[in-house]
């Protein structure tokens, strides 16, 4: 009788950087490149500023990470519009008054969550592909925005919100960064230390096996879309604190960058692999890249091309699919 082929799993001897470390290294490299091209780019103040700009993308991409981890072609294209809508609602309800801050944020997040619920129901019960469901939702939310505002956003951020976001706390860091850190920790905790998070990874890694392990996959997916919209809404509120006043397409441009941040951070679009730490670094990478491109005086056209090429390079580092042949 031959010896059993059981053996201890091979330990990986050669250390290969994980996606988070790699993305972090890229961010550092970009900062160094920026400093070389235009001195001052790597200054403390500027780094803080870049982080602050990255925070909005970072918060909106929390939800995107959750939805993408859930797999099944999961993606939420409506995050930008939902963020805009939340900011518009928040701004109108708080109307520059600290007293109305809490109800305003609560209402804005509730509306965002409701939009996420509709996305989730469409994706699970009606089996509409997430890409199209959330794409259609963009139009609906834009319509809701116009119907709600009549085309004229009103109100203003409450001073408390503005000082929370912009106010300098320790080390001259704006409050926004502490909020982002807190939300990021919340996201990491949610993904790694809750039954929801583990169910989410299970559904994303193998939906059939998840169902056969007693996971309620549909429910998990619906919650994922609700969370996605809620974090998007939160991102919109923070952006409101930053800009103080809103306008009708405030956060729209975060739609595809949020997906890119997730992918650059090493989360697979196929689902089941990834995490928020990578996304956060991905958001920083994208923001530093934008900052670098802004300071490079190469004109709008050149900037756009360089942006695309660098994105491709970043994606090819970790965003690759498996081979057909084994």
């Amino acid at each position, binding site marked *: 009788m031959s010896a059993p082929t059981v053996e201890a799993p091979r330990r990986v001897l050669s250390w290969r950087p994980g996606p988070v470390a790699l993305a972090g290294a890229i961010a550092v490299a970009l900062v160094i490149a920026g400093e070389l091209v235009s001195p001052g780019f790597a200054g403390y103040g500027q780094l803080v500023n870049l982080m602050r700009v990255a925070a909005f993308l970072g918060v909106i991409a929390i939800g995107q990470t959750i939805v993408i981890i859930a797999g099944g072609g999961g993606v939420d294209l409506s995050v930008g519009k939902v963020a805009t809508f939340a900011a518009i609602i928040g701004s109108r309800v708080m109307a520059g008054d600290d007293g109305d801050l809490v109800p305003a944020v609560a209402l804005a997040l509730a509306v965002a969550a409701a939009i996420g619920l509709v996305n989730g129901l469409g994706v699970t019960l009606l089996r509409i592909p997430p890409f199209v469901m959330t794409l259609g939702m963009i139009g609906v939310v834009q319509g809701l925005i116009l119907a709600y505002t009549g085309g*004229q956003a009103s109100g203003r951020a409450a001073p408390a919100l503005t000082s929370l976001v912009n106010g300098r706390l320790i080390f001259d860091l704006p409050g926004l960064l502490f909020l982002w850190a807190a939300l990021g920790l919340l996201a990491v905790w949610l993904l790694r230390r809750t039954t929801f998070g583990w169910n989410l990874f299970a559904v994303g890694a193998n939906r059939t096996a998840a169902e056969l392990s007693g996971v309620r996959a549909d429910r998990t997916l619906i919650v994922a879309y609700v969370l996605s919209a809620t974090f998007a809404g939160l991102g919109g509120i923070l952006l409101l604190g930053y800009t103080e*006043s809103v*306008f009708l397409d*405030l956060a729209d441009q975060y739609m595809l960058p949020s997906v890119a941040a997730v992918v650059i951070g090493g989360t697979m679009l196929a689902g089941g692999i990834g995490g928020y730490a990578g996304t956060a670094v991905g958001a920083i990478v994208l923001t530093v890249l934008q900052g670098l491109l802004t300071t490079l005086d190469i004109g709008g056209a050149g900037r756009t091309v360089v942006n695309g090429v660098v994105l491709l390079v970043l994606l090819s580092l970790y965003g690759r699919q498996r081979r057909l042949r084994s």
Partner: protein
Amino acid sequence: MPRPSRRWRAGAAAGVLTLILAACGSSDGGSGGGGGRPYTIGLSNGFVGSEWRTQMVEGLQAAFAEYQKQGAVDELVVESADTDVNGQIQQIRNLINRDVDAIIVNPNSETALDAVFREAEQQGIQVFAIDQAVTSKDVTNVVIDQAEWARISAKWLAGQVGEGGDIVVVNGIAGHPANEMRWNAAKQVFADAKVNVLSVADGNWDQATGQQVMTNLLATYPDVDGVWTQDGMAEGVFRAVQAADRLKQIKISGEARVGFMRLWNQARADGFESIGVVNPPGGAVSALHMAVNALDGKTFAGGKINGNTVTIPIPYTVDQANFEQHWGAAGGESDAYSLDGSLTPEQAAEYFQ
């Protein structure tokens, strides 16, 4: 589902459509305008993601109501949605199909609507382009002089920073015609005044982007003397400069919107100065006056029209001297409100013979 039957259905649908079309093809085309009073006016607006546009539409509706009372017009058909050039072509075609007499259009492209404008012209419909001039000869442009608009604030800024001063620029969208027109004019002003333009970045006419871009620029060029920006982004630029605590050192060309003026008002105590050149949403109203006159059969007076472009004056400029007065009048409006101005019907009539 077996494939042949699906193909059959698709083929059948296409076939039926073709048949119907062939049958109806011989009937006469849309009648278009040409009738007398009351007139039907169409508005085509291809972008709604901005309050400026909303103000434009609402202002037009209010002015239209006045004409309605006089019995000069009967219906205002509004096509206003976020769309691209192709969508705006469809908007205008829909308006043509509604038999309007004149179309007021805020065009999404300087050139790409030429063909559909010709269609309108062939149907006897008069077209007036506002906000952004178009190249088509079938259209009457009723616009402010964007170059002049840019020059006013550029000259102010050049005066503030002085010869040899260093500035950065936050522009709108590269390649956008209004952006190019404004920037080319401003660039000339700065060159003539020997002001150094250190860097030009795009803020997409978006307040948040403008704020982020300015933040990045400040990191690289912390010692600039001034920043020139276009409308829609001044608030963001201001906040970026404020966050860097350099309001006292850096001069900002502003805008005539309540949001920016509120910031300006707050900073005035610290000696902050700025300028806001009005880019009036009321251009649509001016165009409406022109349209009614034109539909009445009048023609433009000599010297009032250059080619096919009627330049309406920039209503006014908010500066340090008259700030109190304008702030007092507009301060109660929402942040997104743009200071406005339009020709009166009487002023508009003077453009005609």
